[in-house]
């Protein structure tokens, strides 16, 4: 720790550097006239420039590894380019090709449907779970850590485990369903079963995490709101709907945004769920997401320009989703304010 701090001190611009004197006098302290002005100037520089020095690492890192590549991807999306080769201007070719490509629309639809069935039940269950965890409980700590354990499991590990659980021939899910008279669901080969299975992986990994976020927000709701509601004769369910949910609305919105972003970039789960066929999203592309499609275009077909176009379509979708959510927030706020 100490060494890394020192390293950053060396890397920051001069004003932020430690002043050689062990205890520099604050401005206004009498000293030699020359030393005084030198120090006070240094002090003011320190005050002015230091904040920028502290936030600089983030913005430098973002500019280099976030913003620049983002723009460059946009530029690439108008070119035909292969790895190591030179780029050739193609205008909107990559985009029109996407528009005409059945596989692109398929990937877009899959991303959307996978997003919905992996996010909606997940957040609803997390809300319910948080509500229950908010009761006075024995073994409270255990339950909290237990529901969070899947979060500690990586995408790769979780996916490989669930591939086994969902195996149509010997997987435990079909064995279990067999007891209820449901047999031989093709969890990989059929479209909806495969999407449900992949959504299960996502849901399993994130429900507990979101539940804890909701729980924290619920605990910040003032108790007298509940008392007032109880005095008005509101049932528990009514209290949950009319007190809890409105009070934690910002948190709910936050989790919706985060999960939407996560769902848009779904990659590891479907890829590893499909084994050898993962990149194409199954033999009939039945669970190929936009991310997988992009990877297939860029790294299997070597068409980086087209892959870039897919990436930018993803960005546009996210911007669209963001705009919709912004509008919803505004409308909500106006409703609450009025």
């Amino acid at each position: 720790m100490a060494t890394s701090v020192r390293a950053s001190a060396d890397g920051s611009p001069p004003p932020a550097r430690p002043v050689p004197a062990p205890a520099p006098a604050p401005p206004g302290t009498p000293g030699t006239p020359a030393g005084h002005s030198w120090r006070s100037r240094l002090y003011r520089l320190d005050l002015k420039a230091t904040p920028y020095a502290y936030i600089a690492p983030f913005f430098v890192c973002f500019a280099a590894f976030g913003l620049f590549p983002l723009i460059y991807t946009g530029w690439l999306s108008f070119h035909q380019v292969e790895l190591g080769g030179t780029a050739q201007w193609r205008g909107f070719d990559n985009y029109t090709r996407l528009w005409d490509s059945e596989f692109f629309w398929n990937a877009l639809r899959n991303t959307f449907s996978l997003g919905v069935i992996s996010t909606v039940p997940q957040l609803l269950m997390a809300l319910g779970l948080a509500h229950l965890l908010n009761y006075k409980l024995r073994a409270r700590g255990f339950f909290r850590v237990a529901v969070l354990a899947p979060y500690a499991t990586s995408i790769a590990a979780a996916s490989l485990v669930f591939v086994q659980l969902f195996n149509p021939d010997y997987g435990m899910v079909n064995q279990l369903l067999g007891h209820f008279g449901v047999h031989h669901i093709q969890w990989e080969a059929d479209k909806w079963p495969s999407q449900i299975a992949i959504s299960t992986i996502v849901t399993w990994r994130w429900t507990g995490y979101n539940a804890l976020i909701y729980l924290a927000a619920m605990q910040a709701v003032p108790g007298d709101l509940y008392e007032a509601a109880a005095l008005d004769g509101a049932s528990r369910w009514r209290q949950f709907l009319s007190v809890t949910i409105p009070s934690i609305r910002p948190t709910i919105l936050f989790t919706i945004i985060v999960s939407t972003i996560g769902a848009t970039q779904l990659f590891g789960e479907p890829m590893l769920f499909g084994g050898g066929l993962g990149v194409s999203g199954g033999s009939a592309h039945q669970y190929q997401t936009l991310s997988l499609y992009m990877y297939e275009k860029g790294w299997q077909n070597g068409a980086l320009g087209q892959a870039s176009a897919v990436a930018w379509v993803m960005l546009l979708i996210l911007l669209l989703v963001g705009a919709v959510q912004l509008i919803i927030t505004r409308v909500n706020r106006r409703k609450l304010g009025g």
Partner: protein
Amino acid sequence: MAHAVAERAAHRSGPTPAPPKRRRFSARAGRQDHAGPVTYVVLVVAALVSLFPLYWTVVAASSTDTQIVQPPTELLPGSHLIDNLKIAWDQVHMGQALINSTIVAGFVSLSTVLFATLAGFAFAKLRFRGRNGLLTLVVATMTIPPQLSVIPLYQIITDLGWVGRLQSVILPSLVAAFGVFFMRQFLAEALPIELIEAARVDGAHSLRIVWHVVFPIARPAMAVLGMLVFVQSWNDFFWPFIALNQQNPTVQVALAGLGSGDHTIDHAVVLTGALIATVPLLLVFALLGKHIVGGITAGAVKS
């Protein structure tokens, strides 16, 4: 941080100095209720669903391939764990992968904690032009998916000859927006501005203030952030999968190699790999789970 949450909770669940008639009603308030049996049943089921796949990973990692593919599935651990470990170790570079993952996650979490604390401190307590706009920008960058940058990044690391080398994974994640925001939220509340002013009056320059005032106060949040980032970095898949290869993988990349390589797939070995990838983090969770829970919840309350 966790402390503050606990305190608030304790305060709330404390006895209410209300007249008896009112208490009858207030006892109905959701948050003050003791959990009923149904709640426990549901929570136990949730805990089982959360933990069972992990338990079954242990079972599968200690069985043979034949045992796994033969229903009904075995529910108790077998005796083949050591054999499977050896095979997994031979099939992919698992030892190297563990070392690589530790280096990457360790480096990334240290640097994120350091830079995020500095930036979080600046955003929370220092005054400068453009502060609010820049903070909004930080939060906005969280929404940009990594897919948007992988293609140029891959070209860059190809040009630099970094494909398959660890710096290609470490450098892009040196500091994350999430960390900056997390530390800002914590320091905005936890760090009294008087302390900084007092230190200034004493003539301390900014770095000295960071070292002697900010870091000591931020320490619990830094620890939590460090753990969260370590978990994230350890589990990161998309970019390492592209930038590294099976010769020099992280654990997650090696795991993908086990699951879809050229060799015949032995399911027990694959799940042994999953176990190897998961156990270090589960150990961390078992030891520090309470703090991680506190960190996640504390970060959310203030957002």
